[in-house]
């Protein structure tokens, strides 16, 4: 029997996602991809995958799955989600092994919205239009174009066993704070008061929020001259304001074109902040200029790649922490204990 991950319970909405589908937006194909690409890349790095390998994205309530046909290494990053392996509690932001037949079981997310399960080597599944990302609404990509369900058998590529790694707490991304936007492309379709409302008020994330977009509630943003435009292209992070004046942040599974004016666009580095905000939480927007956005992107890239060089080796048991083990360490910046998650040595 070849190596598979067998889904025992799909959870609320667990889908395969990678960096997204490029090059087909002109044919009406949504970009899709991980809602929190930062967490996806961390999960991949923890199991030794290239950062853009497809992962399982889970939301609200997680899946349960059993590995068959061999052992595999996995890691979880992103939203806080309780999980266990064969009944033993395990932590996020670190890799761990599933022995053949062992069951990995996730609970309900307690903080954030999306968690990412990376499997060493990735999935042996053919991409659709260049990507493994799932767009459930149009049935494209991933595992038969849909969310995972009990009984699904996901073939795995498998990978040579590397060191167990964890990401120190100080390096874990945060999703609090204001969300940076660049005004436009249609900010001139709003009154000065409308733009001021957008940039000064807090907007509450409503329950009508999903992978397509975050529908926000708050004071109405005033249009200058009606709320219809001749449809044009939409990007990940476009903030459109329909007739009711309440903004919608269009996200990974967005439609490709739209006919409402877009007051601003969330910068790429801040997209995970939107994705990980839960219904009821508040978002504030702050406008930055194009040059500032370019700097923010470079800083973000430096931070994101930098943290992946600071992964630490995990000591799995107290016995592992003897001097021979510690002397044998020759990698990546130190070690943290699986017993308390704290670094026990650093270089």
């Amino acid at each position, binding site marked *: 029997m070849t190596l598979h991950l067998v889904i025992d319970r799909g959870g609320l909405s667990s889908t395969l996602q990678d960096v997204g589908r*490029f*090059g087909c937006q002109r044919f009406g194909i949504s970009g899709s991809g991980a809602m929190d690409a930062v967490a996806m890349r961390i999960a991949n790095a923890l199991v030794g995958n290239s950062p853009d390998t497809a992962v399982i994205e889970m939301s609200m309530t997680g899946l349960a799955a059993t590995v068959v046909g061999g052992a595999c290494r996995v890691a979880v990053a992103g939203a806080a989600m309780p999980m266990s392996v064969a009944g033993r509690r395990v932590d996020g932001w670190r890799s761990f092994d599933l022995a053949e037949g062992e069951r990995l079981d996730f609970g309900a997310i307690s903080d954030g919205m999306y968690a990412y399960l990376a499997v060493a080597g990735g999935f042996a599944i053919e991409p659709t239009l260049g990507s493994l990302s799932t767009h459930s609404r149009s049935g494209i990509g991933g595992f038969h174009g849909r969310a995972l369900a009990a009984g699904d058998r996901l073939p795995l590529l498998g990978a040579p066993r590397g060191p167990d790694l964890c990401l120190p707490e100080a390096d874990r991304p945060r999703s609090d704070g204001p969300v940076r936007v660049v005004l*436009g492309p249609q900010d001139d379709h709003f009154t000065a008061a409308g733009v001021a409302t957008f940039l000064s008020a807090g907007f509450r994330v409503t329950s009508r929020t999903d992978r397509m977009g975050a529908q926000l509630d708050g004071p109405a943003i005033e249009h200058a001259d009606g709320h219809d435009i001749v449809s*044009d*292209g939409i*990007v990940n992070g476009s903030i459109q304001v329909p007739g009711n004046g309440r903004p919608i942040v269009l996200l990974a599974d967005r439609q490709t074109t739209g006919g409402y004016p877009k007051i601003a666009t969330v910068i790429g580095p801040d997209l995970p902040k939107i994705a990980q905000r839960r219904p009821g939480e508040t978002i504030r927007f702050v406008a930055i200029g*194009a040059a500032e956005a370019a700097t923010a992107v470079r800083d973000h890239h430096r931070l994101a790649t930098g943290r992946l060089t600071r992964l630490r080796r995990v000591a799995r048991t107290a016995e592992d922490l003897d001097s021979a083990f510690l002397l044998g360490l020759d990698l990546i910046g130190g070690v943290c204990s699986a017993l308390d998650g704290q670094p026990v040595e650093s270089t």
Partner: protein
Amino acid sequence: MTGDAPAPRLLDAGDGGLVIELGETIDDRLNATVVALAAAIEALALPGLHEVVPTYRSLLVLFDPLVLPAARLRAIVAALPPPRPASDAERRLWRVPVCYGGACGIDLDDVAARHGLATDEVVRLHAGATYRVHMIGFAPGFAYLGGLPTALHTSRRTDPRPKTPARSVSIGGRQTAVSSPLEVPSGWHLIGRTPVRSYDPHRTSQPFLFSAGDAIRFEPIDGATYERLCRAAEAGEIVAEREMMP
């Protein structure tokens, strides 16, 4: 880009998107310029350019700002010669079979009644025009077409349907459309269905058929032909004829 047309507006769509806005109307010539601009930018094969998305009246350029800084992209776009729209002889023409009315087009009689026309006359007018694909958007393969005869302009339904049949041919305002091979919500009037799948991921050599700038003509078919062509399309055939504009 200079020329007799007004200078395009370059608008930021975040850190990885640039909108090149050539106008704010639905117009064949404007759209032809957008399509030509898309081709001109693609031909540059710029490292860091992800894709271009032509729409009615603007071009969205998506790029990796770490490889292709926005300021550099703006300078490149500003220095482009004015895009030259393709002549008709350079355009593709698709002949798309449509089964009008009945179960395939439940709003056809209503559209006819609104305009005081016989149903056959609506079909004759709709299938007698040559349309331009202004853009593919909203859903996979959904083609927005310009060129609807004035006599058929019909304002959208006041109650959009949450689901409409795959491959519907519909009328909304001054436009007509060939819908996606998926069920999509729509407030447009459904006048027929085509067996043609404008998008089919299993047709790996050609997953997409129509592109912005293409021409489309509709050819009425009966129910039996529709069923036969649906089976052929299911088996991977394109079932639309493609030629160059006469």
